[in-house]
């Protein structure tokens, strides 16, 4: 009997885990659908889960471009803005267009803009490409502010999100918007996962790891790079729709500034490049961290810890964290997570 037990644990050990790989995501998703809406308060949804979902999705999108295909981009917030404002206008100007359709179309608009600003990637690499994607950041924000048509001539450039109807069902209130965002994120994340393990995903990695070799063996480098920009921008655009429609409900172009682009870049650096899970871990840290810091600060320092101090200390600690991650754990939280899990598994099996 004991021989069988050791034999079993040996095979488990060799495979890392005996559980099928789809089980863990399925459990997390079921938990998010069933348990969270029952126990969560509106603060949890409004302040934590909704921004977490939007940033995670943006992180998944940027990770496809930067983590997998190796093209650095600093224009993520621009694609979020493009998605958000496109969805707003589709919804406003096309009579009777279902919400799902305007989300898909807005993703396509963001993808088109992504292709245009991805064109420099055919000639530029690394740092120079990052600088050229800044053009997207400034151009989109400028265009949305300059032409008031985009915000339906609202004086301040602010847009209000429509009600979220899908097939006659209204996603209302914090829980409703949470479920709406969760559904979109789950579907797109699943498709993104399928993408990165496909031939196209492997082509992305090949171009990232050695562009010359990829070209020599016949991978269509130019097409694949533009595809990475298109898919990435599509996903980030949809993340922008969630940000605007489900999380904030009213947004202005200034909300999608360079800081937001950096925030998304930090999400994938901290979470782990070239990892879908990494985007979620990174987004969780980016969202929860300022809240925890403000609680901790006011607990320790009382009134001295006002919003100005909070803002500064956030930047300092976040900056330090990023440096620490780059030095100590370049593969991000996801590598840390895997290592801890392996240790626990080993400990559990040896006991």
């Amino acid at each position: 009997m004991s021989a069988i037990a050791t034999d079993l644990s040996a095979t488990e050990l060799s495979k890392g885990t005996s559980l099928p790989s789809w089980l863990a995501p399925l459990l997390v998703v079921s938990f998010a659908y069933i348990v969270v809406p029952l126990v969560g308060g509106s603060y949890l949804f409004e302040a934590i889960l909704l921004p977490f979902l939007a940033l995670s999705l943006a992180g998944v999108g940027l990770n496809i471009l930067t983590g997998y295909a190796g093209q650095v981009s600093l224009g993520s917030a621009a694609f979020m803005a493009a998605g958000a404002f496109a969805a707003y206008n589709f919804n406003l100007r096309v009579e009777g267009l279902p919400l799902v359709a305007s989300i898909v179309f807005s993703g396509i608009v963001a993808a088109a803009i992504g292709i245009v600003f991805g064109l420099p990637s055919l000639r530029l690499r690394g740092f120079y490409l990052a600088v050229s994607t800044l053009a997207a950041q400034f151009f989109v924000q400028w265009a949305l502010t300059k032409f008031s048509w985009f915000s339906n001539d609202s004086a301040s450039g602010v847009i209000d999100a429509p009600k979220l109807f899908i097939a006659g069902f209204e996603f209302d209130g914090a829980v409703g918007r949470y479920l709406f965002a969760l559904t979109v994120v789950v579907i797109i994340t699943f498709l993104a996962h399928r993408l990165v393990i496909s031939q196209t995903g492997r082509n992305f990695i090949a171009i990232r790891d050695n562009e010359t070799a990829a070209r020599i063996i016949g991978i269509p480098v130019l097409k694949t790079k533009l595809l990475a920009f298109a898919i990435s921008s599509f996903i980030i655009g949809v993340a922008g729709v969630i940000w605007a429609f489900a999380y904030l409900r009213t947004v202005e172009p200034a909300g999608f500034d360079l800081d937001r682009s950096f925030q998304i870049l930090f999400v994938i650096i901290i979470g782990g490049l070239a990892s879908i899970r990494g985007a979620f871990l990174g987004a969780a840290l980016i969202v929860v961290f300022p809240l925890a810091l403000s609680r901790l600060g006011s607990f320790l320092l009382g009134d001295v810890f006002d919003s100005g101090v909070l803002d500064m200390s956030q930047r300092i600690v976040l900056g330090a964290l990023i440096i620490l991650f780059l030095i100590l754990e370049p593969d991000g939280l996801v590598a840390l997570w895997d290592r801890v899990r392996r240790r626990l598994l080993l400990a559990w099996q040896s006991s």
Partner: protein
Amino acid sequence: MPIANYAFGVAEASVYAPEILARGLPDGQPAHKDGSASIEASPALLALEGIGLSFGGVVALADVDLSVRPGEIRAIIGPNGAGKSSLINVISGVYRADRGHVALHGARYAQVPTQRLARLGVARTFQNLALFKGLDVLDNVASGLAYKTRSNFAGQILGLGRSRRERAEQRGRAEQILDFLQLTHVRDRLAGTLPYGLQKRVELARALVAEPRLLLLDEPMAGMTAGEKSEMAAYVRAARDRFATTVVLIEHDVGVVMGLSDRIAVLDYGRKIADGTPDEIRNDQRVIDAYLGVASENEEGAGI
């Protein structure tokens, strides 16, 4: 073992591409030194005509001619900086020659179209390893077939029939090559984690999986121990014999090259100074001078 499951259904397929089976190995048997008479007549698979290349004022290649016959192992040797790698880069289109043409299967190019290289039946390896570190060994090798992919990303995401068939076929072919080069035991390792000698062999596998008619090897044995070198030489010869591939290789180690090649071209300062069989090269005075240096005229050190 999961290998059997993956290969299921394609395990019986030949390692030869159908087109190779159809046209058969050239001259019945691959070219060996004694059988060269029959190859003498066959037209060149690859021909360089008056290739010139310079970087700024530095002449890397000057008026180099080279012809490679189907089925032979053709070595290009020369001291450091002789222009060997530049020549391979010109053949594979990474560099554009300032003068001259490259003729592949009779078609002449001023610059070989790199993007279509695989489709033209040319594969190459690199002097400094150029594997995809983020992919495992099997996927690295399978990527050598990426140029044949017809399915688009949407079909791949949804797992439609064609993309699944392509994937199964690519993996099956890659597994056969891994088996052929005795790499099956590392198929699931990330390529970047392998020891140097194995990485070199994985690169050879990635080039071979496309079943190229012309295989360019840029210093396949650089940095290897003597044992690894003879092992690699055996793999190169086996690959030529099995896939009817023509091989052009660059190598530093003259000893290995002499045993492996059918014909050898020698470069020095960007010029071809000799071209012939290993025996002819071994006895060529200019080659000996280039490699060993010319004896100084003033051995007494007069005038210094």
